[in-house]
């Protein structure tokens, strides 16, 4: 079982590696602003082949293709939102490192805030009790 997985992994890896055989030249940007916008957009997208790298950092062939397509779309005047939509239609929301705020991610985005507020109330109540205790102790001395 374990060995089979290993062999499969090796095959998979060597497949991915061969991807580098056809290297594309780096992209050409129209302006520094465009480059900045591009860099910050691709840093928020997940490389699907490598799964734990963003598109900006990945050297995988697919990542290069996607970077090229994203730049083409930018040059065609598409907004970041449209470009993300384009990718989500093809690859699913898995490609977004910043999950959009919607019903299924409500807990993710609002959970920490709710916890902070609940915690703050609990801590506030605790402090006011302790303050009362403090003055009581001092008064009784």
């Amino acid at each position, binding site marked *: 079982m*374990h060995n089979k997985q*290993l062999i499969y992994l*090796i095959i998979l*890896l*060597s497949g991915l*590696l061969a991807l*580098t055989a056809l*290297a*594309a*030249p*780096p*992209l050409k940007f129209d302006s520094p602003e465009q480059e900045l916008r591009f*860099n910050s957009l691709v*840093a*928020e997208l*997940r490389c699907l082949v*490598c*799964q*734990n*790298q*963003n598109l*900006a*950092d990945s*050297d995988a062939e697919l990542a290069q293709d996607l970077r090229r397509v994203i730049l083409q779309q930018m040059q065609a005047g598409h907004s970041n939102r449209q470009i993300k939509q384009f990718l989500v239609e093809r690859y*699913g*929301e*898995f*490609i*977004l*490192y*910043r*999950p959009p705020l919607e019903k*299924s*991610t409500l*807990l*993710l985005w609002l*959970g*920490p805030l709710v*916890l*902070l507020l609940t*915690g*703050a109330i609990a*801590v506030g109540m*605790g*402090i*006011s009790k*302790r*303050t*009362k*205790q*403090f*003055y*009581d*102790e001092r008064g009784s001395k």
Partner: protein
Amino acid sequence: MIGELGQLALILATLLAIAQTVFPLIGAWLNNNAYMQVGHSAAYGQFVFVAIAFALLTWAFITQDFSISYVANNSNLHLPMLYRFSAVWGAHEGSLLFWVLILSLWTILVAITSARKNSVLPKEFSARVLAVLGFISLGFLLFVVFTSNPFTRILPAPMDGADLNPLLQDPGLIIHPPMLYMGYVGFAVAFAFAIAALIGGKMDRDWVRWSRPWTQLAWAFLTFGIALGSWWAYYELGWGGWWFWDPVENASFMPWIAGTALLHAQAVTEKRGAFIGWTLLLSITAFSLSLLGTFLVRSGVLTSVHAFASDPTRGVYILAFLGVVIGGSLVLYALRAPKMTRGGGFSWFSRETLILINNLILIVAMAMVLLGTLYPLIADAFGLGKISVGPPYFGLMFGLLMIPLVLIMPLGAYGRWKQDKLSRVSRQLLLPLLISAAIAGLSAWFIDNANLRTIAGVFAGSWLIFGSLAYAIQRSMKQRRKWLPAGEVAMVIAHIGVGIFLIGVSMVETTSIEKHIPMSPGDSFQLAEYKFEFTGSEHIEGPNYSADRGTFIVTKNGQAVTTLYPEKRSYRRGQVMTEAALDPGLTRDLYVSLGDQIDAENQRWAVRIYKKPFIRWIWLGTLFMTFGALVGMTDRRFRRKNTDKAVSA
């Protein structure tokens, strides 16, 4: 032979772990000295046998014994000697054995210090601590022996092994895991102290005072280990990042955050006897998160670049063990909670209050990291689809949470126990505030492409540094003593470290410059004030890889700065690795890595060039934090038996 001896050593260690768990517990129950004493002997014995097993596995790697399947999978004839040592803990089985070894090391440290004549620990207490540690060790030893045995044979033995994952063939990876494990596993001691206090039913401030130096030592290791990992990722992964909010990084970061909260909570409990339940809970939490981290890394539940060896069937065992240890502790906590004392009162503005806020924020931050790490799992389990939670989420949320924490940090240092006045503290902090504002203003002027976030970061960092310094200066003037108590020096150093770290992070995150460009020999590129000239690439042969090595001459205004040699390596197993080359500096790193070869004939390469301002400050800051914790644990009062004399104003 090695395999069989290793098996035997592991089985003996397991038996001793059972003895270490059972006898001291009974001894403490019956107040029987001889039984309690068994705990110490068993701990030493266990360490000896675990060390023998570990040494045998190391020996198998050194002598290239490929009849042992673990060695065959993670080494080969060409693996350099240095990496045969780190290969021992480079994959699943070995890293778990290493986990046990480190736990065993912590255990004998506790055993030795508690056996000394002048030890502060009561006999029953140290017996219970050893029993708890023995139980944890038992759980892991059983796991190693039955599901992850590093000594399993393969027959017939292959002529040559596969290879150690090339990512792990790096000097940084030789010390990163040991440090990280020392920290991770070290929280087991604070955990064992908490459980021993709960079992004994004497939950006063004494056990906290005993547990503090251990917590600080573990925290120091963990801080240092995480920093090493970040530094390693920075130069080894080849794209200049230093933190990725990867599930495995989060797995080590969560115990760190909980541990940080614990350090602060312990201060309140020790000095003022308040929040005993909370400190107990945090002690349990910090170690539980270490166990959870082990689970996440070893079970393959989460996708991660780091999950080099993971197996879901093993996850079942760890999860069950997690349930017993954590679930059991929390049940024990719930049973004992009514007996806990309340401690003294304090005014709404006091150090207690500020530490409470610190704990609130840190725990919310920890919960946020946990939520984000597990959310893809949650979404999957409830059919909400496959989603990713990555750096944009964690960075934003963590940054927002840290703002209030950073602002109150110097107040926390200045604030007096029990009661203080906001007006007094603000008066004291006025000067540091002005200095920080001035530095922030200057930074806006002097730093290239600084934005609002840069300036805010520089301000916050300076605020911590100068706020802490001002406190140290004023305190030592008032004290008219040569030295402040170690505990206070520790706090000042660690808080300054956070300030340095913060400046590093804000500079790197907002003012780094990066370029991806194609370069042929003879091409040069101007990045900010530096000119990078690519003179060509050559083919070189390493011990178990071959590589193309580029040469880049870096100049600044015509003056030579450095020459960088980034490599693109192909390892025997087939992986291609980018070895970045960098020129470190206190105010900036220059970083070059080779991407793909675009045109082999003309040696044309896709090149990544980075200038990373102040990135060294990130690791410098963590060194300060580590050092601070080490100073803290030397405080004299930790070696005193009597609590009452230790209470300071």
